[in-house]
């Protein structure tokens, strides 16, 4: 079991704020012990010392944090996920206004920002966690803003005395930033009383309560499994303030993601290739192990590989290459995917696929095709 964890600790009130305003501090020094209670309460109210019309240089503070840039990036670099963007934006606004309040001495308790990200693989959970880290750092909630990703294997040991050091090491690395626990429900196995995951859960509970000013824990995974995990471990659920659901992408959104991914790597689809990729996505969406954005990235990586082989072959044949050749993914680079195999075999209407496909062995793409 983790050292020093008691029920009292887990329900203890959060630590006091650390604002810069000191006008209302050390009340006992300013007033004698015999000050009447009402007067004491009135005089000790920090709001009393701050004029109502005291102006806050909000523009400068907002500019200094540069949080607008990160929010803009979030909006432009992430396709769809409107509810996610909205939630992140809400948190950013809360922290920004907190910062404004603190600039004139208005203290408050630090908000709890531990989160759960639920959704299928490839829906952008890790990417958003990374952006969240930057926002939290820019707004002064954490010292560094980096993201440490961990799963059960990183946290839970295999024998007595193994778990605590492992968990402690991960927490130590994550301090000052975001601890992203992937498939968090795997940490704790309710059906196994001897499972060491319980120790990890207790250590996590402790840091989520006591170190919440300098560490944000994000627990991620499939929604149904996360729901079960939270009901099995209510202590975790009650310490998570933000539950964010990441929906699956539509085929159209996946195509947008694909375009953005290619653009960021200085590639582009030809007109036919874009149509072929649309067809690819429609089919791929119905196949097993589809992982949203991650599947798009994998598909494009394979298309790039096929493009490279195609270009190499054409050079071998004496053709000169242009910049356009180097940046363009052609339809045949997509249509050689194994995803189209069924269509090929059934003599579908995708004649272009057949016509443009090279023998697989020559394309060198026999392995890892989907």
């Amino acid at each position, binding site marked *: 079991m983790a050292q020093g964890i008691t029920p009292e600790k887990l329900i203890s009130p959060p630590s006091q*704020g*650390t*604002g*810069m305003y000191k006008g209302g501090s050390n009340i006992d020094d300013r007033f004698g012990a015999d000050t009447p209670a009402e007067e004491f309460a009135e005089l000790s109210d920090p709001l009393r010392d701050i004029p109502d019309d005291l102006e806050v240089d909000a523009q400068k*503070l907002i500019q200094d944090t540069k949080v607008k840039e990160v929010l803009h990036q979030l909006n432009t670099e992430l396709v769809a996920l409107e509810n996610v963007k909205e939630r992140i934006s809400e948190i950013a606004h809360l922290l920004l206004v*907190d*910062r404004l309040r*603190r*600039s004139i001495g208005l203290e408050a308790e*630090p908000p709890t920002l531990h989160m759960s990200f639920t959704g299928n693989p490839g829906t952008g959970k890790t990417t958003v966690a990374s952006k969240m880290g930057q926002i939290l*750092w820019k*707004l*002064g*909630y*954490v*010292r*560094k803003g*980096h993201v440490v990703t961990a799963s059960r294997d990183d946290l839970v040991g295999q024998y007595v005395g193994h778990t605590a050091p492992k968990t402690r090491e991960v927490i*130590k*690395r994550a*301090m*000052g930033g975001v601890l992203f626990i992937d498939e968090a429900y795997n940490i704790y196995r309710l059906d196994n009383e001897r499972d060491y995951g319980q120790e990890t859960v207790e250590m996590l509970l402790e840091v989520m309560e006591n170190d919440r*000013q*300098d560490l944000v824990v994000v627990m991620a995974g499939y929604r149904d499994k996360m729901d079960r995990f939270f009901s099995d471990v209510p202590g975790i659920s009650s310490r998570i303030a933000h539950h964010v659901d990441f929906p699956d992408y539509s085929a159209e959104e996946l195509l947008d993601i694909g375009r953005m991914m290619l653009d960021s790597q200085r590639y582009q689809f030809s007109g036919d290739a874009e149509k072929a990729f649309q067809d690819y996505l429609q089919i791929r969406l119905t196949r097993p192990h589809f992982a949203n954005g991650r599947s798009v990235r994998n598909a494009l990586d394979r298309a790039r590989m096929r493009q490279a082989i195609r270009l190499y072959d054409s050079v071998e044949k004496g053709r000169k290459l242009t910049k356009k050749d180097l940046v363009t993914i052609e339809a045949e680079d997509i249509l050689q995917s194994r995803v189209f195999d069924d269509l090929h075999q059934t003599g579908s209407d995708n004649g272009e696929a057949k016509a443009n496909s090279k023998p697989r062995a020559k394309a060198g793409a026999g392995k890892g095709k989907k």
Partner: protein
Amino acid sequence: MGVDDWGGGLNQKVVLGRRDPLSWVGFQWTGEEPEGLNDPKQAVALGAEWEGDELVTYNKPSFDHNFSRVRDGWMEDSD
């Protein structure tokens, strides 16, 4: 390689972090700090110094080296 070539960045001021009274944690790293370092007191113990609100080092290579020894659990030779 001569002694003069050791530790590029020697005598060059590197700001590791800054006090930020408006932040919840009162201090923020700049990103120049070595990975895994999060406690400003530990940075001072390893040779960094405060210049006003800035935590700086003038010997980054040596600072990084010192921290790596702590992080990797190496013991100083007690002889």
